[in-house]
């Protein structure tokens, strides 16, 4: 019986770790949806670029040029990934979201970002080739044991990073002028405009923050993923599922759903086999859409007729 309990706790711990990784990616999607009502399909590739940026910063620059220890180089690489994500966010806003915003349609920005995604993936394929890269985090080697439960320092780092990101995001939204302005834009773009808030700038800022999160997510996911130019795509479908399960644009819902999906994945691997993860997650998604189409935390909106 205690063995079973140990197993349950162990898998839950693994699940929370995975969930935190997904939350980092899904939060960006939900943030963008909140202010812009758009989906960024290339978000997946921001994760991949973040992972590669981190890998090369750590191995080529951090240890070799700066002579940092492995752990220092990895922490530095997270900053690089953040920067890479932010830059990509700036670029996709300028190239796609800003020009298409005026037309107010759901389909075209979605397709344009699919185009960007195909472009980015194949650019990386040309640059880096199809063979998976080895990306070891020095923190993965350190195992921590509490009772009969094991976890790595890397998983602690991931949970801490995700928690920091969430706290920072909430603090930003609640306490800074920019955050308040962002929420105003999310609720009503026209009114926010009247209040003297420049919605264009704020939307750009949101996309940059969201993309930076994806970049850091990439640095943290790098050691977990089979790191090829297409690595992000495997995460993003789950991130989409999480965003929907949590309710599009709802940060709290996204966090809960992300952790839930992580835990479900851990148990699916344990009891059903890793091949069935996507199946389980998406069946859950469809069930969810039938039972609660507005997400875990329902925001009731009546259509204004």
């Amino acid at each position, binding site marked *: 019986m205690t063995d079973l309990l140990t197993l349950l706790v162990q898998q839950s711990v693994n699940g929370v770790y995975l969930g935190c990784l997904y939350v980092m990616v899904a939060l960006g999607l939900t943030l963008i949806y909140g202010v812009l009502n758009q989906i960024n399909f290339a978000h997946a590739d921001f994760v991949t670029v973040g992972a590669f940026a981190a890998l090369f910063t750590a191995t080529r620059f951090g240890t070799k040029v700066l002579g940092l220890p492995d752990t220092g180089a990895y922490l530095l690489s997270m900053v690089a990934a953040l920067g890479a994500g932010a830059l990509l966010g700036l670029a996709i806003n300028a190239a796609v979201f800003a020009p298409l915003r005026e037309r107010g349609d759901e389909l075209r920005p979605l397709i344009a970002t699919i185009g960007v995604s195909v472009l980015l993936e194949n650019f990386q394929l040309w640059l880096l080739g199809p063979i998976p890269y080895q990306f070891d985090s020095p923190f993965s080697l350190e195992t921590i044991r509490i009772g009969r439960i094991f976890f790595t320092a890397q998983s602690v780092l991931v949970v801490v990073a995700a928690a920091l990101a969430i706290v920072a995001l909430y603090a930003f939204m609640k306490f800074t002028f920019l955050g308040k302005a962002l929420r105003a834009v999310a609720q009503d773009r026209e009114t926010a405009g009247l209040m003297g808030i420049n919605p264009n700038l704020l939307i750009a800022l949101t996309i940059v923050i969201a993309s930076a999160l994806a970049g850091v997510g990439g640095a943290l996911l790098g050691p977990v993923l089979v790191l090829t130019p297409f690595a992000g795509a495997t995460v993003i479908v789950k991130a989409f599922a999480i965003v929907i399960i949590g309710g599009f644009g709802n940060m709290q819902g996204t966090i809960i759903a992300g952790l839930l999906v992580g835990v479900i994945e851990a148990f699916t691997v344990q009891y059903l086999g890793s091949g069935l993860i996507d199946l389980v997650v*998406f069946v859950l998604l469809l069930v969810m*859409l039938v039972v609660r189409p507005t997400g875990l935390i329902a925001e009731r909106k009546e259509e204004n007729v």
Partner: protein
Amino acid sequence: MSARLVSLLIAILVLAALPWLLPTPYWRGILVLCAMNVLLALSLNLVLGYTGQLNLGQSAFFAIGAYVSTILVKTYAWNFWLASLAAVAAAGLLGLALAAFAVRLRGHYLAIASLGFAVITYQVLVNWEKVTEGVRGIYGILPPVASTTGLFYLVAGITLVVYVLIDNLMRSPVGDTLRAIREDEVSAASLGVNGALWKAFAFGLGAAIAGLAGCFYPGFVGTLVPDAFNIIESFTMMAMVIVGGMGTMIGPVIGAIVLTFLPEVLRDFGEFRLMIYGLALTLVVLFMPGGIVQAWRTLLRSR
């Protein structure tokens, strides 16, 4: 003779001549692929272009058509045409299943739900090895007609018939109804349109047509693996519809032709090929929002 009949005759003549204009086996193969892509683009356009439903899961129905027909022929020794009929019906029914979600969901929610639908279908193909052979794949599948030219005539003929029938339908009150749903569902309901029913109709018919295209694919390639029905396939179909011009009849046909031949023409560029493809998709959306058809019309008007 009406202009429509003239265009139809020209289309038949061009289709008849094509295998002789592109005489190498390689290019004839591309022709077959192109005819299948046109059929797929037509099927998605019905849902996306005319009914306005963000469907990212069309590859699932293509897959169902391919797998059901192949398994019935290979494992149960059915006649190809009977198996195809069953496959089309199966795809259509699955389309109705997705419609059950489309009735309750709008916009991006439907987009992700349909994406999930395609992911689930793909995962079932991978994991249900007893029936689908999983990633190992099914080999040695024969086409319904032995020669590539014959296969082209068959698929192109079916595609032409489907085109004419959909065209008729879109000129009829049914077309008015679907377009009304696309433009404004609440408004359509205020005119007595049962949105749920007509969306189910569009999804079911679109899925059945994609399933029909799927019946010819395995025989043409000779093998069947789940990877042929990845999410990317849905995106490719969508690209064809958008690049050509969605919500028009001829647009998706042009889009399918361009996007089938473009990668072949770009083959010399090797790895740049798909990069150009992605860039082209983005640029078309940014600068030609109505696709090639609308750009052409604008050009004609400005002259």
